[in-house]
């Protein structure tokens, strides 16, 4: 039956996460951006809440309650607080969900327990490449068989790189197929340097260079079969779409509140149609984008291919998040341009969705 109401359990989770976002993320958003640092206590707090672990299998210590729809609901709330911090606290999903979905039994046993137990983020994923036409479906990073090992060469960027990362899942062309390889963070030939962007400045990111990095054959995620990269990309896009909706909603809400507060020519600027209609359009577009995101998430939960739905959702979110954030700057006028207020931060973060891929998984 077609319905748009979260379950009671989802509602409870959303309320908890919303409180976390309001109490812990939003107040730290500006300072985290200015200092380009994620406050480390947040990760521990998020780990306590089990934001990621709740969805991982019970046999490895997780909550066993996997749902992409729930994941989307959670991601939106977190990003409403702050996008960088949301990506940071959700970073354990990268290794976690990828290994659950595509790993061999041995890989699960080797990687999941520490990922779930650790308060820090033990694994990450490298999907984006530092070139103009980065293409998650067609990485240039390549893995070739070299005896009993894989040898990887290439470059990656926009890799979430939190303290404690021990493995990086590197997406690479593997002799005709697409593969993901668990590369130890200390592997010879791997260099990681800090990576800086216009937005998501509080999220630690690395640019990786891989020069003949050797990993054993069983480091290939899922063994010979490899991961289903379409599913991986879709799970990444649904997560990103939900985050984008959260950024847009945050921008909309501050703009709405400001417009009701701020007076010009003696009346609140929200009473001007030019502002009021802009806010109305924002609200409509945000809701539309959210529903597209939910549909893609629901498709994943049904075990179906969600490539199309995820593509539509992220397409819409890229536009909506940017337009809404830009609109919020506009509503604030001069104040939207200064870092004393949040809209400019939303704008810098929102633009990132144009190039983000697999920065989180649902």
């Amino acid at each position, binding site marked *: *039956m*077609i*319905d*748009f*109401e*979260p*379950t009671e359990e*989802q509602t409870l989770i959303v309320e908890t996460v919303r409180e976390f976002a309001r109490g812990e993320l939003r107040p730290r958003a500006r300072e985290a951006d200015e200092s380009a640092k994620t406050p480390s206590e947040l990760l521990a707090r998020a780990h306590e809440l089990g934001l990621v672990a709740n969805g991982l299998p019970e046999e490895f210590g997780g909550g066993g309650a996997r749902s992409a*729809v729930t994941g989307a609901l959670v991601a939106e709330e977190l990003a409403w607080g702050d996008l960088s911090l949301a990506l940071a606290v959700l970073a354990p999903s990268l290794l976690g969900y990828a290994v659950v979905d595509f790993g061999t039994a041995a890989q699960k046993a080797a990687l999941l327990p520490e990922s779930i137990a650790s308060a820090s983020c033990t694994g990450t994923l490298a999907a984006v490449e530092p070139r103009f*036409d*980065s*293409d998650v*479906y*067609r990485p240039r990073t390549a893995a070739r068989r070299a005896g009993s090992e894989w040898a990887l060469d290439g470059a990656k960027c926009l890799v979430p790189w939190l303290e404690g990362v021990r493995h990086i899942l590197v997406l690479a062309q593997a002799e005709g197929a697409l593969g993901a390889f668990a590369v130890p963070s200390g592997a010879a030939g791997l260099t990681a340097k800090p990576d800086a962007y216009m937005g998501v400045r509080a999220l630690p990111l690395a640019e990786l260079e891989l020069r003949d990095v050797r990993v054993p054959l069983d480091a290939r995620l899922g063994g010979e079969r490899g991961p289903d990269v*379409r599913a991986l*990309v879709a799970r990444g896009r649904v997560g990103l779409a939900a985050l984008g909706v959260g950024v847009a909603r945050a921008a909309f809400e501050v703009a*709405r509140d400001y*417009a*009701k507060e701020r007076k010009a020519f003696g009346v609140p600027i*929200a*009473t001007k*149609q030019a502002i*009021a*209609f802009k*806010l*109305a*359009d924002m*609200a*409509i*577009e945000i*809701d*539309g*984008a959210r*529903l*597209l995101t*939910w*549909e893609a998430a*629901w*498709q994943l939960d*049904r075990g179906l291919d969600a*490539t*199309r739905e995820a*593509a*539509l*959702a992220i*397409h*819409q979110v890229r536009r909506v998040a940017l337009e809404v954030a830009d609109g919020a700057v506009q509503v604030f006028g001069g104040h939207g341009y200064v870092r004393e207020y949040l809209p400019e931060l939303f704008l810098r973060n929102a633009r990132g969705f144009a190039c983000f891929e697999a920065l989180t998984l649902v």
Partner: protein
Amino acid sequence: MISFDPTENSNQARRYYRQMAQEQMRPISRRYDEEEHALPREWVDWYWQNARGGAPGNPGGPTDGFVQVCIQAEELCWGDAALYLRTPTAALGGSAVAAAGTPEQRERFLKPFREPGQPIWGAMAITEPGAGSDSAAIQTTARFDAAKDEWVLNGTKIFCTAGEGASQVDGGFVVVWATIDKSLGRGGIKSFVVPARTPGMRLVGLEKKLGIRASDTATLVFEECRVPAGNLLGRPPKPKAEAEKAGDPRTGDKGFKGAMATFDASRPIVAAMAVGVGRAALDFLIEELGRQNVPLRFDAPPRELTALERDVIDMQAELQAARLLTWRAASMMNRGKPNNLEASMAKAKAGLAVTKITQKAVELLGPVGYSKKLLVEKWMRDAKINDIYEGTQQINQLIVARRILEYSSSELR
């Protein structure tokens, strides 16, 4: 639970109406676009005889409720929006009777639509030459003639969809909005059921339009048009002093607010109709590109993605966003939740989205898309009405803005 899985009843309804659209509507689409105002007799009779009872299904089984109504509207407007509007049903007038009428009124006015006999129509008459979007500025008056226990209507109504059928064919009716006391403003506006061919109600013209040309958009003039007291929708009004107690359901019919609430129920359907027209164009485009082996990839390399591919992705995302907003507004009615905001969001989004989608489809199909050889140009013309009727784009933006800003209609004009 968040779910996008239609019930089997909805799936059956979709198949049923899609087949009807394909077989009964599409073959006569062009003809009745060209023969503006001609009665599409094939469709009207076929529907009256075969489809009035609704879609086959499992009456006891789970249902998507109002969402299924949206699915029906989408499929039939995928067939032809103008013919859909000409379908012999009680339509918006029926919704008003169902929403604001007494049980006796519902029985009296709606029963003929379920009985044998010739096809009949219902309609709603709100807009006036001077009023436009401003429903509260209605000038049509209703005077109570206590001696005869009748209401006497005077005024002119324009843009009355299905107004010819509803006013001219015995058994049908027009729900007319009129003020019983201008000094009461919105509170004085009531709706009256005027049966077809009531003396004093005159059909003075049909609009020649950009699109939906098979739909009879009528101008109706009311001159000393008398209807029985019992034709005031809802209970008869109490005296003026009491009537001013807003929100008291005993003060007669639900008045302006009740009538406006009809829109909350009808806007999702209108949005679904829009989605149907938009989908007609998008389906055709995608099928045509398929026939020509033009790729439509969701995973194209960024530098190779064609402008066409991106346009189609965008059209699909926009149409689906409109559809989901529509279903959400309908689904809230299933749950008995107020949906004024969500219904206006759906209407605003759907109207604009399908206007753009159909305009784009004409463009992407080149000179053939612009030509009369295909129906795509007709769908572009038909689609545009969705940006206009049942509240223009701007009116729906205004309603949305008021809700999100928590402003009254006097605070945000």
